């Protein structure tokens, strides 16, 4: 029987090496491509009719759009509008990646720490640059909120700086850990079904429930990731 973590193994589909760097096209990359194509197809095909009274598909596309638009408006305000395309892309990419991972035999690329960390780190660097460009040195008041006693500065500033650098780590670990744990758990219970023979009905029932729960987690984690991105953008734009 395959081990529960074997599903996360990368298989190079198109081996490629440039200057000692392994740039192979792997299953992970394949599923990212599928996700991008899927999102593009979902939005363009469902909006092709562009009817005033939306059909089922158009409704779904409009709901996704409005959901993210409201999230951006509520968390960032009006200045957030220019970042909407980025946030919307991010949300759909993670959401589709998570949900497509629920298809049997599919590869969940969000269950890899390097993928989520790359996204989180890009957001972290982008938000920091945005804050520095918009506010200059005033940006560093983030690390020492006004109204704090000066005596606390030597303790508070290191803590605030560390808690700032924790952001990309916690953002990426949250998504990665949730996806990986969920998929491992499903595989473990799947193994029980085979191992227990006729009594495998019990874990089988559990798997049905677990599948529903995993879909919830997939949507929720996409939401949380996007939500936190909005909050970080808000911090950089408004500086409390």
């Amino acid at each position, binding site marked *: 029987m395959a081990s529960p973590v074997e599903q996360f193994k990368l298989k190079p589909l198109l081996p490629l090496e440039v200057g000692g760097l392994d740039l192979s096209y792997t299953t992970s990359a394949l599923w990212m491509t599928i996700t991008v194509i899927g999102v593009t197809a979902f939005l363009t095909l469902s909006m092709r009719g562009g009817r005033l009274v939306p059909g089922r598909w158009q409704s779904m596309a409009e709901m996704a759009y409005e959901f993210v638009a409201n999230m951006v*408006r509520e968390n960032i305000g009006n200045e957030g509008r220019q970042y909407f395309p980025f946030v919307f892309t991010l949300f759909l990419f993670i959401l589709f990646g998570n949900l497509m991972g629920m298809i049997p035999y599919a590869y969940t690329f969000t269950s890899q720490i390097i993928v989520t960390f790359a996204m989180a780190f890009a957001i972290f660097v982008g938000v920091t640059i945005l804050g520095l460009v918009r506010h200059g040195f005033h940006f560093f008041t983030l690390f020492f909120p006004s*109204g704090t006693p000066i005596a606390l500065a030597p303790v508070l500033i290191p803590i605030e700086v*560390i*808690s700032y650098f*924790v952001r990309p780590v*916690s953002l990426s670990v949250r998504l990665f850990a949730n996806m990986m744990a969920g998929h491992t758990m499903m595989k473990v219970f799947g193994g029980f079904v085979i191992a227990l023979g006729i009594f495998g009905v019990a874990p089988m029932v559990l798997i049905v429930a677990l599948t529903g729960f995993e879909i919830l987690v997939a949507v929720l984690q996409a*939401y*949380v990731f996007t*939500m936190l991105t909005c909050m970080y953008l808000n911090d950089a734009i408004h500086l*409390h």
Partner: protein
Amino acid sequence: MAKDDQTSPPSLDDLDARLRAARDGAERKSGKRAPESASSSPLVGMAMRAGVELVAGVGVGTAAGYGLDKWLDTSPWLLIVFFLLGAAAGMLNAYRAVSGLGMALGYRRGADENAPDKGRGGE
């Protein structure tokens, strides 16, 4: 066409004013709706977040301390200091994640709930 030119300026101004009024109304409504929508569904997500926040704080603090120790050759001291600072940062982040149901994450202080509205009101 000429007739249109004559009639359009006042009507455009009128439309502009009405648009602005509608937009203000929509914004106020969305501002009011925000706490509601934030408290219901993502509650589970916020609960999951606190744990990750704690662990990540300690992890980043320890890693930073270890790295600085290696670089500055001050063996265990910076590791100890940064471990404690990291734990404090983790608790701070977890507190921020939980206290405002996600709305207080970042560098907002305490019950500063209308911070997003502040930016919106400036428009």
